[in-house]
Protein backbone atom coordinates (compact mmCIF):
# COMPACT_ATOMS: atom_id res chain seq x y z
CA UNK A 1 0.00 0.00 0.00
CA UNK A 2 3.09 2.18 0.23
CA UNK A 3 3.22 3.00 -3.50
CA UNK A 4 -0.37 4.00 -3.60
CA UNK A 5 -2.13 5.69 -6.48
CA UNK A 6 -1.88 8.91 -4.50
CA UNK A 7 1.93 8.67 -4.28
CA UNK A 8 2.20 8.26 -8.03
CA UNK A 9 -0.31 10.98 -8.69
CA UNK A 10 1.65 13.45 -6.54
CA UNK A 11 4.99 12.50 -8.11
CA UNK A 12 3.63 12.71 -11.63
CA UNK A 13 1.95 16.07 -10.95
CA UNK A 14 5.17 17.54 -9.51
CA UNK A 15 7.34 16.27 -12.34
CA UNK A 16 5.04 17.45 -15.10
CA UNK A 17 4.38 20.93 -13.71
CA UNK A 18 8.09 21.26 -12.89
CA UNK A 19 8.94 20.27 -16.45
CA UNK A 20 6.42 22.74 -17.84
CA UNK A 21 7.80 25.53 -15.67
CA UNK A 22 11.32 24.83 -16.93
CA UNK A 23 10.05 24.93 -20.52
CA UNK A 24 8.27 28.18 -19.70
CA UNK A 25 11.35 29.98 -18.38
CA UNK A 26 13.76 28.88 -21.16
CA UNK A 27 12.57 31.36 -23.84
CA UNK A 28 12.81 34.20 -21.33
CA UNK A 29 15.88 33.14 -19.39
CA UNK A 30 18.20 32.44 -22.35
CA UNK A 31 17.80 35.77 -24.19
CA UNK A 32 17.90 37.69 -20.91
CA UNK A 33 21.08 35.89 -19.84
CA UNK A 34 22.62 36.71 -23.23
CA UNK A 35 21.68 40.38 -22.87
CA UNK A 36 23.31 40.54 -19.46
CA UNK A 37 26.43 38.76 -20.69
CA UNK A 38 26.92 40.83 -23.84
CA UNK A 39 25.26 44.23 -23.52
CA UNK A 40 25.53 47.20 -21.20
CA UNK A 41 22.91 49.74 -20.26
CA UNK A 42 22.26 52.10 -17.36
CA UNK A 43 20.96 50.55 -14.13
CA UNK A 44 21.85 47.07 -15.40
CA UNK A 45 22.92 45.95 -11.93
CA UNK A 46 19.60 47.06 -10.41
CA UNK A 47 17.69 44.95 -12.90
CA UNK A 48 20.08 42.08 -12.31
CA UNK A 49 19.46 42.25 -8.56
CA UNK A 50 15.73 42.18 -9.15
CA UNK A 51 16.00 39.12 -11.37
CA UNK A 52 18.05 37.34 -8.71
CA UNK A 53 15.86 38.40 -5.76
CA UNK A 54 13.73 35.23 -5.59
CA UNK A 55 16.95 33.34 -4.91
CA UNK A 56 17.46 34.99 -1.53
CA UNK A 57 14.05 36.31 -0.53
CA UNK A 58 11.94 34.10 1.73
CA UNK A 59 9.87 32.05 -0.72
CA UNK A 60 6.77 32.88 1.28
CA UNK A 61 7.35 36.59 0.62
CA UNK A 62 7.72 35.90 -3.09
CA UNK A 63 4.53 33.87 -2.88
CA UNK A 64 2.71 36.75 -1.22
CA UNK A 65 3.85 39.16 -3.94
CA UNK A 66 2.68 36.70 -6.60
CA UNK A 67 -0.67 36.34 -4.79
CA UNK A 68 -1.09 40.10 -4.82
CA UNK A 69 -0.22 40.25 -8.52
CA UNK A 70 -2.36 37.35 -9.71
CA UNK A 71 -5.19 37.53 -7.15
CA UNK A 72 -8.52 38.41 -8.67
CA UNK A 73 -8.59 41.80 -6.98
CA UNK A 74 -5.43 42.97 -8.78
CA UNK A 75 -5.62 44.46 -12.30
CA UNK A 76 -3.52 41.63 -13.70
CA UNK A 77 -5.60 38.93 -12.03
CA UNK A 78 -8.81 40.65 -13.08
CA UNK A 79 -7.60 40.97 -16.69
CA UNK A 80 -6.68 37.27 -16.77
CA UNK A 81 -9.96 36.25 -15.08
CA UNK A 82 -11.94 38.16 -17.73
CA UNK A 83 -10.24 35.97 -20.31
CA UNK A 84 -11.08 32.81 -18.42
CA UNK A 85 -7.65 32.28 -16.89
CA UNK A 86 -7.41 31.75 -13.19
CA UNK A 87 -3.99 31.43 -11.61
CA UNK A 88 -4.66 31.28 -7.91
CA UNK A 89 -5.44 27.96 -6.17
CA UNK A 90 -5.03 25.70 -9.15
CA UNK A 91 -2.20 24.03 -11.06
CA UNK A 92 -1.38 27.25 -12.95
CA UNK A 93 -0.51 28.85 -9.63
CA UNK A 94 1.90 25.99 -8.97
CA UNK A 95 3.39 26.57 -12.40
CA UNK A 96 3.88 30.32 -11.86
CA UNK A 97 5.37 29.84 -8.39
CA UNK A 98 7.80 27.21 -9.66
CA UNK A 99 8.78 29.32 -12.69
CA UNK A 100 9.45 32.47 -10.69
CA UNK A 101 11.41 30.66 -8.00
CA UNK A 102 13.59 28.67 -10.40
CA UNK A 103 14.18 31.40 -12.97
CA UNK A 104 17.28 32.91 -11.25
CA UNK A 105 19.07 29.55 -11.30
CA UNK A 106 18.67 29.14 -15.05
CA UNK A 107 19.53 32.80 -15.60
CA UNK A 108 22.73 32.67 -13.58
CA UNK A 109 24.07 29.51 -15.13
CA UNK A 110 23.23 30.61 -18.69
CA UNK A 111 24.72 34.05 -18.15
CA UNK A 112 27.98 32.55 -16.91
CA UNK A 113 28.27 30.26 -19.90
CA UNK A 114 27.49 33.10 -22.33
CA UNK A 115 30.24 35.13 -20.68
CA UNK A 116 32.63 32.26 -21.27
CA UNK A 117 31.98 32.27 -25.03
CA UNK A 118 34.82 34.19 -26.67
CA UNK A 119 33.23 37.31 -28.23
CA UNK A 120 35.96 37.22 -30.88
CA UNK A 121 34.27 34.15 -32.37
CA UNK A 122 31.02 36.08 -32.75
CA UNK A 123 32.87 39.01 -34.30
CA UNK A 124 34.64 36.81 -36.82
CA UNK A 125 31.34 35.11 -37.66
CA UNK A 126 29.96 38.57 -38.44
CA UNK A 127 32.83 39.37 -40.78
CA UNK A 128 32.03 36.10 -42.58
CA UNK A 129 28.60 37.48 -43.39
CA UNK A 130 26.51 35.85 -40.65
CA UNK A 131 23.44 37.67 -39.35
CA UNK A 132 22.97 38.31 -35.65
CA UNK A 133 20.36 35.53 -35.53
CA UNK A 134 22.66 33.05 -37.25
CA UNK A 135 25.53 33.92 -34.94
CA UNK A 136 23.32 33.44 -31.90
CA UNK A 137 21.97 30.06 -32.93
CA UNK A 138 25.01 28.61 -34.75
CA UNK A 139 27.87 29.96 -32.62
CA UNK A 140 26.76 31.33 -29.27
CA UNK A 141 24.06 28.87 -28.19
CA UNK A 142 26.00 25.69 -29.09
CA UNK A 143 29.07 26.96 -27.27
CA UNK A 144 27.03 27.86 -24.18
CA UNK A 145 24.80 24.80 -24.37
CA UNK A 146 26.26 22.82 -21.48
CA UNK A 147 25.82 25.71 -19.08
CA UNK A 148 22.28 26.28 -20.29
CA UNK A 149 21.34 22.61 -19.83
CA UNK A 150 22.98 22.53 -16.42
CA UNK A 151 21.02 25.64 -15.48
CA UNK A 152 17.78 24.13 -16.75
CA UNK A 153 18.41 21.00 -14.66
CA UNK A 154 19.06 23.07 -11.57
CA UNK A 155 15.94 25.12 -12.25
CA UNK A 156 13.94 21.92 -12.66
CA UNK A 157 15.11 20.54 -9.34
CA UNK A 158 14.46 23.85 -7.65
CA UNK A 159 10.94 23.80 -9.11
CA UNK A 160 10.34 20.33 -7.65
CA UNK A 161 11.41 21.49 -4.21
CA UNK A 162 9.26 24.62 -4.27
CA UNK A 163 7.12 25.05 -1.16
CA UNK A 164 6.73 28.55 0.25
CA UNK A 165 5.60 30.45 -2.82
CA UNK A 166 3.44 27.54 -4.00
CA UNK A 167 1.49 27.18 -0.80
CA UNK A 168 0.60 30.87 -0.84
CA UNK A 169 -0.27 31.16 -4.50
CA UNK A 170 -1.80 27.72 -5.14
CA UNK A 171 -2.65 26.41 -1.71
CA UNK A 172 -2.24 22.78 -0.68
CA UNK A 173 -5.19 21.06 -2.29
CA UNK A 174 -4.81 17.26 -2.56
CA UNK A 175 -5.23 16.03 -6.12
CA UNK A 176 -5.26 19.59 -7.44
CA UNK A 177 -2.23 21.58 -6.34
CA UNK A 178 -0.44 19.18 -4.05
CA UNK A 179 3.24 18.76 -5.03
CA UNK A 180 5.79 16.43 -3.44
CA UNK A 181 6.94 19.04 -0.95
CA UNK A 182 3.42 20.09 0.00
CA UNK A 183 2.36 16.47 0.38
CA UNK A 184 5.26 15.60 2.69
CA UNK A 185 4.36 18.57 4.87
CA UNK A 186 0.74 17.48 4.85
CA UNK A 187 1.43 13.84 5.79
CA UNK A 188 3.75 14.87 8.61
CA UNK A 189 1.14 17.28 9.92
CA UNK A 190 -1.42 14.47 9.91
CA UNK A 191 1.01 12.11 11.64
CA UNK A 192 1.13 9.70 8.64
CA UNK A 193 4.84 8.96 8.65
CA UNK A 194 4.91 6.05 6.17
CA UNK A 195 3.70 7.92 3.05
CA UNK A 196 5.81 10.93 4.08
CA UNK A 197 8.95 8.75 4.05
CA UNK A 198 8.11 7.28 0.67
CA UNK A 199 7.76 10.75 -0.80
CA UNK A 200 10.93 11.79 1.00
CA UNK A 201 12.84 8.95 -0.66
CA UNK A 202 11.49 9.97 -4.05
CA UNK A 203 12.58 13.59 -3.58
CA UNK A 204 16.06 12.59 -2.43
CA UNK A 205 16.44 10.28 -5.44
CA UNK A 206 15.31 12.91 -7.93
CA UNK A 207 17.45 15.66 -6.38
CA UNK A 208 20.48 13.39 -6.51
CA UNK A 209 20.00 12.61 -10.19
CA UNK A 210 19.54 16.24 -11.17
CA UNK A 211 22.38 17.75 -9.18
CA UNK A 212 24.73 14.98 -10.23
CA UNK A 213 23.99 15.36 -13.94
CA UNK A 214 24.17 19.15 -13.76
CA UNK A 215 27.58 18.97 -12.07
CA UNK A 216 28.73 16.40 -14.58
CA UNK A 217 27.80 18.72 -17.45
CA UNK A 218 29.64 21.67 -15.93
CA UNK A 219 32.68 19.56 -15.18
CA UNK A 220 33.01 18.19 -18.69
CA UNK A 221 32.63 21.70 -20.09
CA UNK A 222 35.61 22.84 -18.09
CA UNK A 223 37.52 19.75 -19.13
CA UNK A 224 37.24 20.64 -22.81
Amino acid sequence: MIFSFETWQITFFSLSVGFLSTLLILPFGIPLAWLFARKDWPLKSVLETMVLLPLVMPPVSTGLILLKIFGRRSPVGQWLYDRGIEIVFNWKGVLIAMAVMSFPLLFRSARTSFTEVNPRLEQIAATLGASAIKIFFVITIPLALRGIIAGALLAFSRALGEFGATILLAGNIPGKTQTLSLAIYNFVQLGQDAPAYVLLAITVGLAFIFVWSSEWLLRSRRGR
Partner: protein
Amino acid sequence: MRLCCRIPLASFDLEIDVTFDAKVTAIFGPSGSGKTTLLDAIAGLKKIASGEIEVNGRALFSSKRGIDLPPRERGVGYVPQEAALFPHLSVRKNILFGARRRSLEPTVAAIGMKHVVEVLEIGSLLDRPVSQISGGEAQRVALARAIVSRPQLLLLDEPLASLDIGMKEKILPYLARVRDKFAIPIIYVTHNISEVLSLADWIVMIRRGRFVAQGPPRQALRSTPALRDLEEEPLDNILSGAWLGGDQREGTSRVRLASGREVVVRYAEPPAGQTLQLKVSADDILVATKRPEAISAANVLPGTITQLEPLGGQVLLEVEAGGIFSVRITAAAVNRLNLTVGKEVFLIIKARAFRVL
Protein backbone atom coordinates in the same frame (compact mmCIF):
# COMPACT_ATOMS: atom_id res chain seq x y z
CA MET B 1 42.38 51.87 -50.78
CA ARG B 2 42.03 54.68 -48.31
CA LEU B 3 42.41 54.38 -44.56
CA CYS B 4 41.74 57.50 -42.64
CA CYS B 5 40.60 57.19 -39.08
CA ARG B 6 40.83 58.46 -35.57
CA ILE B 7 40.21 55.95 -32.79
CA PRO B 8 40.62 56.91 -29.15
CA LEU B 9 42.46 54.18 -27.25
CA ALA B 10 43.35 53.84 -23.59
CA SER B 11 46.89 55.20 -23.77
CA PHE B 12 46.89 57.14 -27.05
CA ASP B 13 44.73 58.01 -30.03
CA LEU B 14 45.20 56.03 -33.21
CA GLU B 15 45.35 58.57 -36.01
CA ILE B 16 46.20 57.57 -39.51
CA ASP B 17 45.50 58.79 -43.03
CA VAL B 18 46.99 56.78 -45.89
CA THR B 19 45.99 55.91 -49.42
CA PHE B 20 47.57 53.01 -51.24
CA ASP B 21 46.94 50.48 -53.95
CA ALA B 22 48.95 47.32 -53.54
CA LYS B 23 48.50 43.59 -53.67
CA VAL B 24 49.94 42.98 -50.22
CA THR B 25 50.22 45.90 -47.86
CA ALA B 26 52.10 45.37 -44.63
CA ILE B 27 51.13 47.43 -41.61
CA PHE B 28 54.41 47.44 -39.77
CA GLY B 29 55.25 48.66 -36.30
CA PRO B 30 56.35 47.53 -32.86
CA SER B 31 53.91 45.75 -30.54
CA GLY B 32 51.37 48.11 -29.05
CA SER B 33 51.30 50.50 -32.01
CA GLY B 34 47.59 49.94 -32.61
CA LYS B 35 47.98 47.59 -35.56
CA THR B 36 45.29 45.12 -34.50
CA THR B 37 42.98 48.02 -33.63
CA LEU B 38 43.39 49.28 -37.17
CA LEU B 39 42.39 45.90 -38.62
CA ASP B 40 39.40 45.74 -36.26
CA ALA B 41 38.36 49.19 -37.47
CA ILE B 42 38.55 48.12 -41.12
CA ALA B 43 36.49 45.01 -40.36
CA GLY B 44 33.91 47.09 -38.49
CA LEU B 45 34.64 45.50 -35.11
CA LYS B 46 35.99 48.67 -33.52
CA LYS B 47 34.24 52.00 -33.27
CA ILE B 48 35.89 54.81 -35.22
CA ALA B 49 35.52 58.36 -33.89
CA SER B 50 35.87 59.96 -37.31
CA GLY B 51 37.40 59.29 -40.69
CA GLU B 52 36.90 57.37 -43.86
CA ILE B 53 37.64 53.81 -44.96
CA GLU B 54 37.39 52.94 -48.60
CA VAL B 55 38.14 49.60 -50.24
CA ASN B 56 38.11 49.19 -54.03
CA GLY B 57 36.23 52.47 -54.33
CA ARG B 58 33.51 51.39 -51.92
CA ALA B 59 33.08 53.29 -48.67
CA LEU B 60 32.93 51.01 -45.63
CA PHE B 61 32.94 53.92 -43.24
CA SER B 62 32.63 57.63 -43.63
CA SER B 63 31.81 59.96 -40.78
CA LYS B 64 31.21 62.76 -43.28
CA ARG B 65 28.67 60.85 -45.33
CA GLY B 66 27.23 58.98 -42.35
CA ILE B 67 28.25 55.53 -43.61
CA ASP B 68 29.10 52.79 -41.16
CA LEU B 69 28.55 49.36 -42.67
CA PRO B 70 28.11 46.51 -40.18
CA PRO B 71 30.87 43.85 -40.27
CA ARG B 72 28.72 41.41 -42.21
CA GLU B 73 28.30 43.83 -45.10
CA ARG B 74 31.90 44.91 -45.37
CA GLY B 75 33.13 41.94 -47.38
CA VAL B 76 36.34 41.73 -45.44
CA GLY B 77 37.93 38.37 -44.63
CA TYR B 78 39.61 38.59 -41.26
CA VAL B 79 42.21 36.11 -39.99
CA PRO B 80 42.92 37.12 -36.40
CA GLN B 81 46.13 36.25 -34.65
CA GLU B 82 44.61 33.45 -32.62
CA ALA B 83 42.82 32.01 -35.73
CA ALA B 84 39.51 32.01 -33.81
CA LEU B 85 38.15 28.83 -35.36
CA PHE B 86 34.72 27.82 -34.14
CA PRO B 87 35.63 25.08 -31.64
CA HIS B 88 32.36 23.13 -31.92
CA LEU B 89 32.48 22.78 -35.69
CA SER B 90 34.62 20.50 -37.85
CA VAL B 91 37.33 21.98 -40.04
CA ARG B 92 35.05 21.61 -43.07
CA LYS B 93 32.15 23.40 -41.41
CA ASN B 94 34.45 26.17 -40.31
CA ILE B 95 35.62 26.72 -43.86
CA LEU B 96 32.09 26.65 -45.25
CA PHE B 97 30.69 28.99 -42.58
CA GLY B 98 30.81 32.05 -44.80
CA ALA B 99 30.50 30.26 -48.13
CA ARG B 100 26.86 31.04 -48.79
CA ARG B 101 27.28 34.77 -48.53
CA ARG B 102 26.15 36.54 -51.65
CA SER B 103 29.00 38.41 -53.15
CA LEU B 104 28.76 42.15 -52.55
CA GLU B 105 30.26 42.93 -55.91
CA PRO B 106 29.46 40.89 -58.98
CA THR B 107 33.11 41.16 -59.95
CA VAL B 108 34.17 39.11 -56.96
CA ALA B 109 34.14 35.59 -58.30
CA ALA B 110 33.35 32.72 -56.01
CA ILE B 111 36.46 30.82 -55.07
CA GLY B 112 35.60 27.18 -54.66
CA MET B 113 36.41 25.46 -51.43
CA LYS B 114 38.16 22.68 -53.32
CA HIS B 115 40.64 25.06 -54.87
CA VAL B 116 41.38 26.83 -51.60
CA VAL B 117 41.82 23.55 -49.78
CA GLU B 118 44.29 22.40 -52.43
CA VAL B 119 46.35 25.57 -52.34
CA LEU B 120 46.56 25.51 -48.54
CA GLU B 121 47.01 21.72 -48.38
CA ILE B 122 44.40 21.12 -45.70
CA GLY B 123 42.44 18.40 -47.48
CA SER B 124 43.38 15.75 -44.93
CA LEU B 125 42.11 17.89 -42.06
CA LEU B 126 38.59 18.52 -43.31
CA ASP B 127 36.75 16.00 -41.15
CA ARG B 128 38.73 16.59 -38.00
CA PRO B 129 37.42 18.53 -35.04
CA VAL B 130 39.20 21.83 -34.59
CA SER B 131 40.68 20.67 -31.30
CA GLN B 132 42.79 18.09 -33.15
CA ILE B 133 44.82 20.31 -35.45
CA SER B 134 48.04 22.18 -34.79
CA GLY B 135 48.50 25.93 -34.52
CA GLY B 136 49.90 26.25 -38.03
CA GLU B 137 47.07 24.15 -39.45
CA ALA B 138 44.54 26.28 -37.58
CA GLN B 139 45.98 29.37 -39.25
CA ARG B 140 45.65 27.80 -42.68
CA VAL B 141 42.07 26.76 -41.93
CA ALA B 142 41.24 30.29 -40.76
CA LEU B 143 42.80 31.62 -43.95
CA ALA B 144 40.71 29.20 -46.04
CA ARG B 145 37.56 30.19 -44.14
CA ALA B 146 38.19 33.85 -44.89
CA ILE B 147 38.94 33.26 -48.58
CA VAL B 148 35.88 31.06 -49.16
CA SER B 149 33.63 33.86 -47.87
CA ARG B 150 34.47 35.85 -51.03
CA PRO B 151 36.08 38.87 -49.45
CA GLN B 152 37.15 41.97 -51.33
CA LEU B 153 40.01 42.34 -48.91
CA LEU B 154 41.87 39.96 -46.62
CA LEU B 155 43.08 41.12 -43.23
CA LEU B 156 45.84 39.04 -41.68
CA ASP B 157 46.85 39.84 -38.12
CA GLU B 158 50.38 38.59 -37.48
CA PRO B 159 49.53 35.07 -38.61
CA LEU B 160 53.02 33.95 -37.67
CA ALA B 161 53.34 35.58 -34.29
CA SER B 162 51.43 33.00 -32.28
CA LEU B 163 53.44 30.12 -33.69
CA ASP B 164 56.81 28.89 -32.64
CA ILE B 165 59.77 29.29 -35.00
CA GLY B 166 59.47 25.89 -36.66
CA MET B 167 55.81 26.44 -37.46
CA LYS B 168 56.46 29.93 -38.66
CA GLU B 169 58.65 28.69 -41.40
CA LYS B 170 55.97 26.37 -42.68
CA ILE B 171 53.13 28.88 -43.02
CA LEU B 172 55.05 31.57 -44.89
CA PRO B 173 55.03 29.70 -48.22
CA TYR B 174 51.24 29.32 -47.94
CA LEU B 175 50.82 33.03 -47.45
CA ALA B 176 52.91 33.60 -50.56
CA ARG B 177 50.70 31.16 -52.45
CA VAL B 178 47.52 32.90 -51.32
CA ARG B 179 49.02 36.14 -52.59
CA ASP B 180 49.86 34.60 -55.94
CA LYS B 181 46.81 32.40 -56.59
CA PHE B 182 43.88 34.54 -55.48
CA ALA B 183 43.23 38.04 -56.71
CA ILE B 184 42.37 39.39 -53.27
CA PRO B 185 44.23 42.40 -51.91
CA ILE B 186 45.78 41.68 -48.53
CA ILE B 187 46.49 43.90 -45.57
CA TYR B 188 49.00 42.20 -43.37
CA VAL B 189 49.92 43.30 -39.87
CA THR B 190 53.35 42.41 -38.53
CA HIS B 191 56.29 43.54 -36.49
CA ASN B 192 58.68 41.25 -38.32
CA ILE B 193 60.82 42.81 -41.06
CA SER B 194 61.64 39.55 -42.81
CA GLU B 195 57.96 38.86 -43.33
CA VAL B 196 57.44 42.32 -44.76
CA LEU B 197 60.30 41.92 -47.19
CA SER B 198 59.18 38.51 -48.40
CA LEU B 199 55.44 39.12 -48.76
CA ALA B 200 54.51 42.75 -49.09
CA ASP B 201 54.80 45.12 -52.00
CA TRP B 202 53.76 48.15 -49.94
CA ILE B 203 54.40 48.98 -46.35
CA VAL B 204 52.74 51.41 -43.96
CA MET B 205 54.75 52.00 -40.82
CA ILE B 206 53.09 53.13 -37.64
CA ARG B 207 54.34 53.73 -34.13
CA ARG B 208 52.16 54.40 -31.10
CA GLY B 209 49.18 55.10 -33.30
CA ARG B 210 50.94 57.55 -35.58
CA PHE B 211 51.85 57.21 -39.23
CA VAL B 212 55.63 57.08 -39.74
CA ALA B 213 56.24 56.28 -43.41
CA GLN B 214 54.91 54.35 -46.36
CA GLY B 215 56.20 53.06 -49.67
CA PRO B 216 57.72 49.98 -51.25
CA PRO B 217 59.15 47.95 -48.34
CA ARG B 218 62.88 48.26 -49.01
CA GLN B 219 62.63 51.96 -49.67
CA ALA B 220 60.38 52.72 -46.74
CA LEU B 221 62.41 50.65 -44.31
CA ARG B 222 65.39 52.84 -45.12
CA SER B 223 63.65 55.94 -43.83
CA THR B 224 65.33 56.61 -40.54
CA PRO B 225 62.62 56.36 -37.86
CA ALA B 226 62.01 52.70 -38.61
CA LEU B 227 65.66 51.79 -38.65
CA ARG B 228 66.01 52.23 -34.93
CA ASP B 229 64.24 48.90 -34.65
CA LEU B 230 66.52 47.26 -37.17
CA GLU B 231 69.67 47.27 -35.13
CA GLU B 232 68.68 44.41 -32.85
CA GLU B 233 65.74 42.74 -34.60
CA PRO B 234 66.47 39.47 -36.34
CA LEU B 235 66.58 40.22 -40.04
CA ASP B 236 66.22 37.49 -42.61
CA ASN B 237 66.46 37.45 -46.37
CA ILE B 238 63.70 35.42 -47.91
CA LEU B 239 64.16 34.45 -51.56
CA SER B 240 61.96 32.52 -53.94
CA GLY B 241 63.51 29.85 -56.07
CA ALA B 242 62.98 26.65 -58.01
CA TRP B 243 64.24 23.31 -56.73
CA LEU B 244 66.70 21.80 -59.22
CA GLY B 245 67.66 18.59 -57.49
CA GLY B 246 69.48 17.26 -54.50
CA ASP B 247 72.02 14.69 -53.48
CA GLN B 248 71.37 13.15 -50.12
CA ARG B 249 74.87 11.64 -49.83
CA GLU B 250 76.52 14.94 -50.60
CA GLY B 251 74.07 16.65 -48.27
CA THR B 252 73.24 19.40 -50.72
CA SER B 253 70.44 20.62 -52.99
CA ARG B 254 70.55 23.14 -55.80
CA VAL B 255 68.05 25.97 -56.09
CA ARG B 256 67.68 28.46 -58.91
CA LEU B 257 66.79 31.95 -57.76
CA ALA B 258 64.36 34.17 -59.66
CA SER B 259 67.31 35.93 -61.31
CA GLY B 260 68.56 32.64 -62.74
CA ARG B 261 71.50 32.36 -60.39
CA GLU B 262 71.96 28.99 -58.74
CA VAL B 263 72.74 28.50 -55.08
CA VAL B 264 73.66 25.42 -53.09
CA VAL B 265 71.75 24.76 -49.91
CA ARG B 266 71.81 21.94 -47.40
CA TYR B 267 69.93 18.85 -48.56
CA ALA B 268 66.15 19.10 -48.36
CA GLU B 269 63.34 16.88 -49.53
CA PRO B 270 61.90 18.08 -52.87
CA PRO B 271 59.09 20.56 -52.16
CA ALA B 272 55.47 19.77 -53.06
CA GLY B 273 55.22 22.53 -55.63
CA GLN B 274 57.66 23.89 -58.16
CA THR B 275 58.76 26.86 -56.12
CA LEU B 276 60.19 27.10 -52.67
CA GLN B 277 61.49 29.81 -50.44
CA LEU B 278 64.89 30.14 -48.92
CA LYS B 279 65.74 32.00 -45.79
CA VAL B 280 69.13 33.28 -44.77
CA SER B 281 69.81 35.63 -41.90
CA ALA B 282 71.41 39.00 -42.67
CA ASP B 283 73.92 38.14 -39.94
CA ASP B 284 75.03 34.90 -41.59
CA ILE B 285 76.38 36.39 -44.81
CA LEU B 286 80.08 37.25 -45.16
CA VAL B 287 81.35 40.02 -47.41
CA ALA B 288 84.69 39.80 -49.26
CA THR B 289 86.26 42.28 -51.65
CA LYS B 290 88.28 39.57 -53.45
CA ARG B 291 87.03 36.17 -54.53
CA PRO B 292 88.05 33.81 -51.75
CA GLU B 293 89.59 30.46 -52.60
CA ALA B 294 89.90 27.22 -50.66
CA ILE B 295 86.88 27.93 -48.56
CA SER B 296 84.23 25.52 -47.29
CA ALA B 297 81.26 27.77 -48.05
CA ALA B 298 79.43 26.56 -51.16
CA ASN B 299 78.16 29.90 -52.36
CA VAL B 300 80.34 32.79 -53.43
CA LEU B 301 78.06 35.28 -55.15
CA PRO B 302 79.49 38.29 -56.99
CA GLY B 303 77.43 41.44 -56.50
CA THR B 304 77.31 45.18 -56.09
CA ILE B 305 76.54 47.23 -52.98
CA THR B 306 73.40 49.26 -53.67
CA GLN B 307 72.72 50.67 -50.22
CA LEU B 308 74.73 51.26 -47.10
CA GLU B 309 72.84 52.28 -43.99
CA PRO B 310 74.56 52.81 -40.64
CA LEU B 311 72.56 51.58 -37.64
CA GLY B 312 74.51 52.64 -34.61
CA GLY B 313 77.64 50.51 -34.58
CA GLN B 314 76.18 48.11 -37.15
CA VAL B 315 75.76 48.69 -40.85
CA LEU B 316 73.01 47.34 -43.05
CA LEU B 317 74.15 46.67 -46.60
CA GLU B 318 72.00 45.90 -49.54
CA VAL B 319 73.79 43.92 -52.18
CA GLU B 320 72.46 43.06 -55.62
CA ALA B 321 73.82 39.57 -56.20
CA GLY B 322 71.21 37.78 -58.28
CA GLY B 323 68.58 39.04 -55.86
CA ILE B 324 68.73 41.73 -53.23
CA PHE B 325 70.48 40.50 -50.11
CA SER B 326 70.41 42.42 -46.85
CA VAL B 327 73.68 41.95 -45.00
CA ARG B 328 74.35 43.21 -41.50
CA ILE B 329 77.97 43.69 -40.47
CA THR B 330 79.86 45.87 -38.02
CA ALA B 331 81.02 49.39 -38.81
CA ALA B 332 84.59 48.18 -38.23
CA ALA B 333 84.27 45.67 -41.08
CA VAL B 334 82.92 48.38 -43.39
CA ASN B 335 85.90 50.61 -42.60
CA ARG B 336 88.47 47.85 -42.90
CA LEU B 337 87.20 46.79 -46.33
CA ASN B 338 86.46 50.36 -47.35
CA LEU B 339 82.95 49.43 -48.47
CA THR B 340 80.93 52.05 -50.36
CA VAL B 341 77.86 52.11 -52.54
CA GLY B 342 78.68 50.82 -56.01
CA LYS B 343 81.55 48.67 -54.84
CA GLU B 344 81.81 45.15 -56.24
CA VAL B 345 81.89 42.50 -53.54
CA PHE B 346 81.46 38.78 -53.05
CA LEU B 347 78.84 37.41 -50.70
CA ILE B 348 79.87 34.18 -49.00
CA ILE B 349 77.03 32.00 -47.79
CA LYS B 350 77.39 28.51 -46.38
CA ALA B 351 74.98 25.92 -47.76
CA ARG B 352 73.85 25.32 -44.19
CA ALA B 353 73.06 28.99 -43.62
CA PHE B 354 70.14 28.68 -46.06
CA ARG B 355 66.95 27.21 -44.76
CA VAL B 356 64.31 25.87 -47.08
CA LEU B 357 60.87 27.04 -46.00
